[in-house]
Each structure stands twice: as structure tokens, then as C-alpha cells.
């Protein structure tokens, strides 16, 4: 794991954690909207630098044995992403590309600018960003497109290795250059 003094970073990967208060009465509709996103491609797939992302509704906090447990005054919407590159550029992209979804999601939160888009939405998300304490990444230097390319290439190598078993040396070399480059 490379040394990183910025707690929101691990290598080139960044951690974004945003907690925003859900407007009174808006939780059921927000939950229905978010759960409905499973029916199609995730909107996060349109942010090509997102490795993983989630929206989670926090209805309240669970207490154990504390004397005065904290109760949330309003349920919170948690959004997190593990992404490539600088946070600023990622938020710019999110606010631009997910403008329609942002209206349905953060538009149901308290204090959000109207309309919830562009620079105003970015400022809102930044203001509600929770700084990470400790962030762990298994492959901190690999961007999403690099991971995907490496996975495709691995499939290609496996397929080629099978196909090449019976090839003579000249055919093997020619096929390798054709299918795996070099």
C-alpha cells in the first residue's frame, strides 16, 4: 500500500463520502427512485471514472448501550464513490452528466440549490463531504479504463492460449502479433 498523507486518496484513487439530510416526507419516494435504478444501466456507468458507487438511506442511527443515543432529526442520504483522479474534476463530471438523476436524488434533500445542478450542486456536495479517515485500495494505481482493458486482454490471452496449442511456430507468431499485438 503506497504512503498517502491525503486521507481521501489511495494512489490515484479517490474516496468521496457525502451525507445529506433528506427533506421531510421525501424518504419513500427517494427510496423508490433509487431502487428503481436497478431496472436499467446504473447512472454511475455514465461516469467512466467510477470504480464503485452507492446510495444508501440512513433512516436513523442504531444505538447500543450509550446513555443518550443520538437520533437523527431527519434521515440522511449517503453517497459514496471510489473514483479515479482529482475530486474536483469528478464532481464537475457528476454534476454535469447526472443532472437529470441529481434532480430526483439530491433534489429531495434539504438545503439543496434549485435547480440542483452545475456549480451550485457541486458546492452543496462539497459542503456535505465527510473526509475519509482511512482508505484502502487493492489496485490504487489502476484507473477504471485500465482495469477494464486488462480484463479484456486477460480473456483474449486465455482464448489465444487455447487456440494456439496446435499451431506451428510460424503460425503461432503470426497469430500472436495479429491477436495480442506486439
Amino acid at each position, binding site marked *: *500500500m*503506497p504512503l498517502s498523507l491525503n*486521507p481521501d486518496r489511495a494512489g490515484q*484513487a479517490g*474516496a468521496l*463520502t457525502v451525507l445529506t*439530510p433528506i427533506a421531510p416526507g421525501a424518504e419513500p419516494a*427517494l427510496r423508490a427512485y*433509487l431502487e428503481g435504478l436497478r431496472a436499467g444501466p*446504473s447512472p454511475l*456507468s455514465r461516469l467512466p471514472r467510477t*470504480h*464503485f*458507487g*452507492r*446510495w*444508501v*438511506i*440512513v433512516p*436513523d*442511527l*442504531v*444505538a*447500543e448501550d*450509550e446513555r443518550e443515543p*443520538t*437520533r437523527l*432529526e*431527519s434521515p*440522511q442520504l*449517503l453517497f*459514496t464513490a*471510489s473514483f479515479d483522479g482529482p475530486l474536483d474534476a469528478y464532481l464537475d463530471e457528476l454534476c454535469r452528466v447526472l443532472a437529470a438523476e441529481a434532480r430526483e436524488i439530491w433534489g429531495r434533500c434539504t*438545503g439543496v440549490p434549485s435547480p440542483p445542478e452545475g456549480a451550485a450542486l457541486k458546492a452543496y456536495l462539497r459542503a456535505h463531504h*465527510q473526509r*475519509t*479517515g*482511512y*482508505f*484502502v*485500495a*487493492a*489496485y490504487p494505481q489502476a484507473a477504471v479504463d485500465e*482495469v*477494464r*482493458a*486488462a*480484463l479484456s486482454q*486477460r480473456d483474449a*490471452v*486465455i482464448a489465444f*492460449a487455447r487456440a*494456439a496449442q496446435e499451431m506451428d*511456430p510460424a503460425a*503461432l*507468431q503470426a497469430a*500472436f502479433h495479429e491477436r*495480442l*499485438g*506486439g
Partner: protein
Amino acid sequence: MAIAEAPSPGPLTATGTDPRNVDGQAICITVFSAVKWWGRPWLPLVFLYARLVPSSTGTLARLSFIHFARWTLVRRLPEQRLRHPQLFFESNFNGGWEEYIDAFSHILTRGMTVFWGSSYGFPKPLPTGRFKAYIKRHELVASHFYSAYPEATTTIVLSALELDEKLRAFRARTKGMDPEAFARAWQAFLTEVQGCL
């Protein structure tokens, strides 16, 4: 005493978690726990130490099923005062929920105590039954979870990245070889990368 429960989870999948926490092979876990007064100064020191001394969390890095994970101490929310700070933990991993918590309990026993020891009600990582019940009580189901490469496990991603590096080297060292030498090099390459395939 639980003052609030997350909405009832749906039926568990073969992975041992709610289907909403699953995207392909990827599983997410989301946990909040209230932190005792001494966790407020303690946890930032733990996080700092973990960042400055990467070898201190080497075991965590070697758990081959975690893509990304994070711990955050939530001290305040903009619109409300928190009587107790909250420790937020999330992980993006593959495998099964039970196996994941088992690995945390058995392999990272001391580490789990360091991270969660200041949380109210933390039962110690072992025996795992009580620890799993604790995590279940504090876990939230995602309303939407996304992975950019849902069918790839962490091990496959790491293997693919290693293979990419070795394939580049192979291309470079076989450039200009005659076919017979290339065929021998290819066989040696397959042996070298068999763990990545």
C-alpha cells in the same frame, strides 16, 4: 437497545446479503456505529498511523477479496449535532458476507479491535457469532450499488493487471525473434503467467 432499524432486508442471496447490496460478483457493506468519547481522539490517530505505516495494515491489503474499503469518523452533520460521533465503514468486496466477516474476525482480530474497540456495544471480533450479529445490527442496505466491472473479483483484477505488465515485457523481449525461438518463449511465458490465467 435499538432505537431504529433499517427497513427489513430482502431475501438473502447466496452471498449471504440482501440482493440490493450485490452487483455481479461485487458486494457492498455499509456500517455506522456510535463511538465513545475516547474514540474521538483515538480513531484519528489510528487512521494516521495506518496511513503513515502501511505495513501496519499489510494483512488487510493481503485480503484478496477487497477492492476498496474505507473508515471515516463522522463528527458532525451540517444540519444537526451528533451526541456521539459515528464510525462509518464501507467495503466493496467479492465472495460471501459470512466469509468476509469470518476473515475479518480471524485474520484481523487485533486490527478490528483497534478500529471498532471505541464503538458502543462492540463485542470483540471473536467469537464470530457475536461480531456478526453486531455488524448485522448496524449494517444498512444500499438502495443502489454499482460496480464498473461487476463480474471481476479482486483476484481476477489483480491477475489481469499483473498479466498486462508481463505481456508488455514479453512483447518487448520477443520482438524480432525467429518463429522457433518465439514458440519456446511463448511456452515459457505461459508457465510464467499461469497464475494470472
